[in-house]
């Protein structure tokens, strides 16, 4: 049904982003707050109005831009809210295009959240990748450029898998592009290709290395946006299409543990937080894999809570980077006297991610673990609980301890520069911190928004057994931390992850392009010279001689013609390998498209 009026929140952000650079300076700050607030209000106005909106006819298709239901609403709500918080946090940033990139990126996420078919999904999916890469490039360091290109390359590969999957699906279903439960019971090649596209954005190993790579290098406020949107949009897409797919459970559990292991080794604060995104998204992916109503509720609730506390953590560590210019534990330490507010906010984020009672993680993470126990998947539930000990160990203890306490590794310059960040950053952190505690303390706020509110209402995280279980795990983890603290002292090292393959592989390709391919190219050119050109020229010369000496004046011009053909042949068959490969690949692509759509 096409209703009278429905305003897509992504449209508000896109139009808002394009107007921003033309505004006078005095108007910019209020405008930066107003636009995301309008987007948030437009989401609020949809509450309780479930249905399909914004259907557009395009060629043979009906494109659906606005599917409003329980699942899309909870994600749209938190994403527009996070857009307000992130923009306030970055209010001091004077480069308009950072804000433009951030808003377009959020618009991409919202487009995916509300879309009803794969074409619209793909459009916004790519918008996300292409807008967010600027949040890395704007950091402006020499590495930023390379990291950005790697990020883009990986996401383009993921996008291609998704595209291939949906083209195959289009053919297999006879033209059905609607985006809904994909039929996990009978997966085909197209299902797996689409799954790979989603898993790459959710940073599921082995497709995860782009995440710490990019988020550790993004601008201070850019990272706050990035940590919230790409992976959670992918969680949404998985929950929409792949709920109940068994393979997601082991994948999610592996993610949860993988992130924990690398977080132990990490020396960079924001890269550590990035590894913990992988760990936390693991819970959500496992929740989607379990697929019961409680588990899907849990995945959504955890995504909701995660966007806020991870945003808060990135804001806290980002404010240290903003003020001191340092983000490595081996160059920080002992800063509580200089940055007490940043410490308190980061600690609130740390306690929330660790699922301390009264903080947001406690009421969301537990739902997924409980769903695991409920379906008697004990190993998954126990391993996820193990990972939650690791979460507290790093984000709740290691991060605050080695930045604000511990051995003071600050240089004189770092120490002098350190101070609590500007007011707008503190306001951003304050809002997120308040919401983390509010969600944890007053469960109906979040639980009523979940896709299955009646199931959520029947779930009570605050019982004595769960309290006792959680407190024992967390506090005895703290005991282990303080007993083994020497082992955790920061080491100025980096850890090799699976990006090694394409970073070193890229070098291999570069070498390949420089040496063997160039060699082959010149061989082929030489070959043409001998096989093609020389005989032609010889023939031409012969005819020229013949013309000159034998039939002079009789068949005048023959030699000229042959010489002309020789030249034309030479131009067509340029002998450059890259053109030949290009023509061949284009031919294959065209044939493939004809085959699929014919």
């Amino acid at each position, binding site marked *: 049904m096409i209703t009278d009026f429905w305003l897509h929140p992504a449209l508000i952000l896109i139009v808002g982003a394009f107007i921003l650079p033309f505004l006078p300076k005095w108007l910019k700050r209020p405008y930066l707050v107003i636009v995301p607030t309008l987007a948030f209000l437009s989401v609020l106005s949809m509450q309780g109005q479930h249905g399909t909106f914004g259907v557009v006819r395009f060629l043979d298709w009906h494109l659906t831009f606005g599917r409003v239901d329980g699942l899309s609403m909870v994600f749209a709500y938190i994403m527009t809210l996070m857009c307000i918080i992130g923009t306030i946090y970055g209010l001091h940033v004077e480069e308009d295009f950072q804000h433009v990139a951030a808003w377009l990126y959020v618009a991409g996420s919202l487009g995916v959240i509300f879309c009803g078919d794969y074409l619209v999904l793909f459009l916004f999916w790519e918008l996300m990748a292409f807008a967010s890469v600027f949040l890395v490039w704007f950091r402006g360091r020499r590495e930023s450029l390379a990291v950005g290109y790697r990020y883009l390359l990986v996401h383009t590969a993921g996008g291609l898998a998704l595209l291939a999957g949906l083209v195959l699906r289009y053919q297999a279903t006879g033209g059905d592009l609607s985006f809904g439960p994909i039929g996990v019971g009978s997966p085909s090649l197209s299902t797996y290709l689409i799954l790979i596209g989603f898993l790459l954005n959710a940073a599921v190993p082995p497709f995860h290395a782009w995440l710490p790579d990019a988020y550790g290098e993004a601008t201070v406020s850019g990272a706050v946006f990035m940590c919230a949107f790409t992976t959670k949009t992918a969680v949404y897409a998985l929950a929409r299409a792949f709920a109940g797919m068994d393979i997601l459970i082991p994948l999610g559990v592996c993610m949860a543990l993988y992130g924990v*292991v690398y977080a*132990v080794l990490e020396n960079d604060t924001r890269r550590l937080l990035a590894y913990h995104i992988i760990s936390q998204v693991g819970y959500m992916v496992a929740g989607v894999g379990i697929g019961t109503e409680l588990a899907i509720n849990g995945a959504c609730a955890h995504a909701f809570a995660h966007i806020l506390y991870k945003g808060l953590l990135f804001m806290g560590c980002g404010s240290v980077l903003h003020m001191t210019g340092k983000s490595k534990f081996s160059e920080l330490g002992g800063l509580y006297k200089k940055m007490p*507010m940043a410490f308190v906010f980061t600690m609130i984020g740390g306690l929330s991610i660790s699922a301390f009672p009264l903080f947001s993680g406690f009421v969301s993470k537990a739902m997924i673990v409980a769903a695991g126990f409920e379906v008697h998947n004990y190993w998954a539930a126990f391993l996820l609980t193990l990972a939650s000990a690791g979460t507290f160990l790093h984000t709740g203890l290691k991060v605050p301890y080695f930045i604000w306490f511990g051995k003071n590794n600050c240089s004189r310059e770092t120490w002098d520069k350190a101070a609590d960040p500007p007011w707008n950053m503190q306001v951003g952190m304050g809002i997120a911190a308040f919401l983390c505690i509010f969600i944890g303390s007053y469960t109906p706020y979040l639980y009523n928004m979940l896709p299955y509110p009646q199931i959520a209402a029947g779930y009570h995280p605050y019982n004595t057994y769960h309290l006792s279980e959680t407190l024992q795990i967390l*506090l005895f983890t703290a005991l282990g931390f303080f007993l083994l603290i020497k082992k955790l002292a920061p080491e100025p090292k980096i850890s090799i992850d699976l990006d090694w393959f394409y970073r070193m592989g890229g070098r291999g390709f570069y070498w390949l392009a420089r040496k063997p391919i160039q060699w082959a190219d010149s061989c082929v050119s030489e070959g043409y010279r001998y096989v093609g050109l020389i005989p032609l020229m010889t023939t031409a010369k012969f005819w020229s001689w013949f013309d000159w000496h034998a039939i002079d004046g009789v068949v005048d011009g023959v030699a000229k013609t042959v010489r002309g053909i020789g030249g034309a042949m030479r131009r067509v068959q340029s002998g450059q390998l890259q053109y030949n490969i290009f023509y061949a690949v284009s031919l294959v692509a065209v044939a493939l498209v004809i085959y699929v759509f014919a």
Partner: protein
Amino acid sequence: MIVKLIDFLRDRLQLVIRLSYVGLALLVAWDVFFVSKEHAHTAVEHIPGFWAAFGFVACVVIIIVSKWYGHLGIMTREDYYDN
């Protein structure tokens, strides 16, 4: 205010540590004697102080296994990827 509170606690570090140990002991005692186990999912959870042991062992295992893995050659010099 926050700084003063932290300094106050740091000046009495030994006392804070002792109180923390007492707190941990009380927590386990509370679990063993007062907490009803009807919400437990599996039989092992009925072992007194199970989750305390689980938390401690989990922490130690995570640190040791990760560091062992890191020192296999995964952790390397910071300019590893530079030309």
